[in-house]
């Protein structure tokens, strides 16, 4: 373990993070909302902590080892999650406990979008902006870390792509040099954000709302600057259409965006098995939910039924968590079906959460293979993605992931019920946090304010677990990892 090297990286990370306190300062100056000081204090505290960590070891020339990568990845979300809560704690305009502030901050950075704040509309503009910015930073962290760095550690959904090059990507690294890859992904992320912001603006949002919501859309976060979430703009359907488009795009593997952008053709998308599955799942869910809403006569007009149905399927399916309706009050099985969609989540290498489409696809194929085995005991069956056979190792790892996912899910569900939550609330809260979705059902349908502190800490852990695709975090909790 290269502690000095890790310390240096975390120090650097904090110094860079402190810079992100400056845009809210500018927002605060523009709107003169009086929160200026809390951001400045946070800036000073963060930069000071960073320097304290960094200066003593800045001359250390020790290189990071592969194993240290786990710590760096986990630190990105935990350390920044803690420091990110400072402005919320310091600001006198919102009375918020430390637990709540940290919950909000981690929910932002992990792009979950679960909130404990009930009076969002009355918050100072700079705080509102800051929450959105946290999600955007978190999304950027995912794109760069999950696509460029985590596959090197052999963790995360993208590492599945490394084993046997299914799909268009010949290597998990898109360009020969890591920094180039990160830069390319960052450009794509930025481009999507700008396009999304412009889209919202043209569709009728104010400039502030357009920027704020574009941050939360492209990062698949789901924070809004209004209590009613996207429902605030219910009279402007074009905004919902824009949101649908960009949530859908952000749920796609960013490596695919990169490949198709470089080859200037959409062939890369169409050829990709994960993308095909992603689209089919969404379409399938849209058809079912639209049909059922029609059948139940939930909305007055057909346009509304179709728009709301598509919006919520895409929003929940990609784990964004924007809502325009109180979907948790929809009739019958629909809320639960949508919640289950979030387990599948976005594609590997996207900003979406959940178990990732590629894993679902492999689990499905594996299940199908077992059925075929029963019918033809002597058959030799191989699992293929995009026409290429997969190594048994990859399929094992998916099963491993799935079992640990279910196990940790069950433990947290039981803990929450032990702490007094009813079953639906507990189940949906763990699902919504672990899949980085945001809104759940029942008590947590709108916000998480009513929960106990203990519950919130467990859910913070759930959000981190989900974001770090479980193994990254769990591996740090094993003694074997720390043994020299």
């Amino acid at each position, binding site marked *: 373990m290269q502690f000095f090297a890790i310390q240096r990286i975390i120090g650097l990370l904090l110094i860079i993070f402190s810079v992100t306190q400056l845009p809210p300062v500018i927002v605060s100056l523009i709107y003169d909302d009086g929160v200026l000081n809390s951001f400045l204090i946070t800036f000073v505290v963060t930069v000071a902590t960073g320097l304290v960590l960094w200066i003593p070891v800045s001359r250390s020339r020790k290189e990071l080892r592969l194993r240290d990568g786990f710590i760096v990845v986990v630190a990105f979300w935990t350390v920044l999650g803690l420091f990110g809560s400072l402005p919320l704690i310091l600001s006198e305009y919102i009375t918020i406990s430390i637990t709540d502030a940290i919950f909000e901050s981690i929910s932002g950075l992990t792009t979950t979008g679960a909130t404990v704040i009930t009076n969002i509309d009355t918050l100072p503009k700079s705080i509102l902006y800051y929450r959105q910015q946290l999600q955007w930073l978190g999304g950027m962290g995912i794109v760069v870390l999950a696509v460029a760095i985590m596959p090197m550690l052999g963790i995360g959904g993208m590492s599945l792509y490394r084993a046997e090059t299914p799909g268009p990507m010949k290597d998990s690294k898109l360009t020969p040099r890591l920094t180039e890859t990160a830069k390319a992904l960052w450009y794509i992320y930025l481009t999507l954000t700008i396009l999304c912001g412009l889209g919202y603006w043209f569709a009728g949002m104010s400039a502030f709302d357009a920027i704020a919501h574009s941050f939360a859309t492209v990062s698949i976060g789901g924070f809004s600057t209004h209590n009613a979430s996207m429902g605030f703009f219910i009279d402007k359907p074009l905004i919902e259409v824009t949101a649908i488009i960009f949530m859908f795009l952000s749920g796609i593997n960013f490596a695919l965006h990169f490949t198709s952008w470089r080859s200037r053709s959409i062939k890369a998308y169409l050829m990709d098995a994960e993308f095909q599955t992603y689209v089919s799942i969404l379409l399938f869910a849209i058809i079912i939910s639209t049909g059922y809403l029609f059948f139940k006569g939930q909305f007055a007009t057909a346009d509304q039924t179709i728009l709301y149905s598509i919006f919520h399927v895409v929003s929940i399916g990609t784990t964004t968590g924007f809502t325009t309706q109180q979907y948790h009050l929809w009739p019958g099985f629909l809320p639960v079906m949508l919640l289950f969609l979030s387990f599948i989540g976005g594609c590997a290498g996207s900003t979406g959460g959940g178990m990732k489409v590629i894993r679902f696809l492999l689990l499905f194929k594996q299940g199908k293979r077992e059925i075929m085995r029963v019918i033809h005991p002597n*058959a030799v069956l191989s699992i293929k993605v995009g026409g290429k056979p997969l190594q048994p190792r990859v399929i094992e790892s998916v099963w491993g992931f799935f079992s640990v996912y279910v196990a940790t899910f069950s433990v947290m569900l039981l803990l929450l019920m032990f702490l007094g939550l009813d079953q639906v609330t507990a189940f949906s809260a763990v699902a919504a946090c672990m899949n980085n979705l945001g809104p759940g059902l029942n008590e947590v349908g709108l916000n998480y304010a009513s929960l106990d502190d203990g519950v919130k800490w467990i859910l913070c852990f759930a959000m981190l677990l989900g974001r770090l695709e479980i193994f990254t975090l769990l591996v740090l909790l094993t003694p074997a990892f720390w043994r020299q």
Partner: protein
Amino acid sequence: MKIIILGAGQVGSSLAENLVSEDNDITIVDTNTSQLRALQDRLDLRTVAGQASHPDILQNAGAQDADMIIAVTDSDETNLVACQIAYTLFHTPTKIARIRSMAYLSERDKLFTQDAFPIDVSISPEQIITDNIFRLIEHPGSLQVLDFADGQVQMVGVKAFYGGPLVGSELKAIREHIPNVETRVAAIYRRGHAIIPEGHTVIEADDEVFFIAATKDIRAVMSELRRIDTPYKRIMVVGGGNIGKRVAKSLEYNYNVKLIDHNLERSEEIANELDKTLVIHGDAADQELLQEEGIDKIDVFCALTNDDEANILSSMLAKRMGARKVMTLINRAAYVDLIQSGDIDIAISPQQATIGSLLTHIRRGDVVKVHSLRRGAAEAIEAIAHGEPSSSKVVGKSIEDIKLPPGTTIGAIVRGKDVIIVHHDTIIQSEDHVIMFLVDKKFIPVVERLFQVGITFI
């Protein structure tokens, strides 16, 4: 003609056997001396022992004045190099190489040119056999399907059965039965003997009838000779070798294909490579396994391993257990006569399939396609007529005026895109593709001479 054959394997030796009987000077090269000795004892040819691609060996074999070199060793690379050397050092005019690997074949347009590998013709036996089986499965009930003129015309061999509307009537009745379809019966084999069909010939049950027709009309004609078989759906392939795998691959999107192989590693390899085929690891002669995989519902059972005995036994077992049609790959010519007409519906001989495509290049005159039939005794030929009425023995003449050797029939002419089923008064024009059936191969030189252009043509 002076021909050097490199490689005395199955294809090489049966090719030698065919060519020797046609009055050619054959030299055959191989590293296996006992194989060479066996050949020399049996056939009138010269043998050279050694590595086929070495210049000194080629020189020994007489490459400097050879007309043609045919490289059919096991190794694609040896074949390629031998042709390259023959071209560079000895300027051999015609070079034919057997190329198995798809990796080379898929780039054949760029690779096999005068500046790269100077190969005039590359043949791939596996592909030829695969195409053969594919056509047989496409036309249920046929014993043999031969393509001519890029598939515009086909010659099909079928067995006539009781219940076919035409069985028991004279050939000329065919026009009344199917007035819109043009066809011509090229030959009839009755109890192993050829009959030259005339208008008043009566088709009997169990006759093997070879007829020629445009590809789209094949089905209509077949339905006159037997109750038409319903199209095949379920295919079972035994053996995951090169042929088995290719057959499965070419069929898997249109048919329900199962492939059985006894080698687990090979099965896994194939399962990875094929998309829809169900690959089963096991022994094709295992009754339980066949039962489990629903052998009684299988339409075509193809035994395509490289082991003749295993192929024959598993095919017989499959037939006994209810497979509708069985096709068997048989290398040894002696077995072919032994089993056909028994339980096995169609015996496929790899040599015969391959030799046809080699013979195409050995025939004189502008011959574009040769199919060797009935163990090489008969041949179906597609030749192009050239020249002027004054210089050619066929151009400008009607069919009845052409002096064809006995046992030879002209079945069809392809003129550009048109398929013309010939009548006695059809006149052949220059550049026509003429499709003929020769019951007896000994008259081939006569036919060759017919299609060679006279001296006066410049």
